[in-house]
């Protein structure tokens, strides 16, 4: 059996994706909600999505460095738990917008703010209900050569260039040219 997480392209069976899976360009990000560089790149990703519209399929996988970022694991759990209530991307945005407040109390507050069942969400976070999935994301990243966050794959090819809007947009717009 193929371990689907090992594919370096978005997989609708397991990944959180935005856009159509058959879009010509697939952008996969490995990220950590407490990583400042991931927070900085988030508006850039959003702008790329806005510009490319239907041509882009975006997926996010967790790559929490839990020893240097003590809240990263629970934040990833919160995103997954929100996903169980149909609000993965709303929580994803909220977490990146509030990187300096990712303690459990704040996570519950964000859940409530998004109109989610905060008790259920925080229970899932505390019981590490989604730890296997988060670990699977992490391990797939390591296998794919992810060495830090954020890491991007464009149509399955690792992107090692600068993370500004212009270079990233150029690479995403011309996936054949990234090597």
């Amino acid at each position, binding site marked *: 059996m193929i371990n689907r997480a090992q594919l370096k392209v978005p997989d609708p069976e397991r990944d959180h994706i935005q856009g159509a899976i058959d879009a010509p360009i697939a952008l996969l990000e490995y990220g950590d909600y407490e990583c400042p560089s991931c927070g900085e790149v988030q508006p850039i990703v959003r702008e790329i999505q806005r510009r490319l519209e239907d041509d882009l399929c975006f997926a996010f996988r967790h790559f929490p460095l839990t*020893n240097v970022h003590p809240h990263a694991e629970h934040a990833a759990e919160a995103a997954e738990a929100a996903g169980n209530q149909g609000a993965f991307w709303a929580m994803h945005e909220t977490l990146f917008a509030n990187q300096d407040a990712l303690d459990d109390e704040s996570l519950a507050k964000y859940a409530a703010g998004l109109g989610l069942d905060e008790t259920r969400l925080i229970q899932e976070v505390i019981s590490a209900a989604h730890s296997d999935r988060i670990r699977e994301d992490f*391990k797939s990243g*390591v*296998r794919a*050569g992810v*060495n*830090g966050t954020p890491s991007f794959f464009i149509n399955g090819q690792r992107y*090692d260039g600068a993370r500004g809007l212009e270079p990233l947009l150029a690479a995403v717009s011309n996936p054949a040219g990234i090597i």
Partner: protein
Amino acid sequence: MAISTVTTESNTATSPKSGQGHPYKKMYSKSRRTALPRGADAPDFTLRSTPDQWLTLSEFRGQPVVLAFYPADWSPVCGDQMALYNEMLKEFHELGAELIGISVDGAWCHAAFARDRKLHFPLLADFEPKGDVACRYGVYRDKDGVSERALFVIDSEGKVHWSFVSPIGVNPGADGILSALEDLQNKQATPAIAEAK
């Protein structure tokens, strides 16, 4: 361009005999080409792991060891690399391996670095004589006074099973280490399967 250069260097580091006479050859520093290759005996050493403890490589005989040489504590790339390996300890242990970091920094520096980054594996001080172990593994940069960013997977019999020298500013990740450890595990498993048949 940057990516293809890295790939070429990596290939050469993995199989030092390839690429002889290749135009890229001149681009490599000497130390890169002298990293101990697969099959070499891993030189034994005893280094400080903390200000009052010592660690000897041969104590790990019987299990694979991952030696991660890195240029310096505190530099951003090393931080990321060691932070990544720190998160990978479970996987390394599942493959029966121990991870050891080595740089020329002193034991007190390592202690502060490990505490700050919450590292859960030993950092050895290749401090006196400075870089001696790195030299013996062929990964010392004389000009810079630090080691290369070099990885060695040593098998249970103390031989180099895999080595890799990364460009000094590039975090090599952990995929190569995992593949090498799995390769070792498969090798161990194969005779047992043959016997069972």
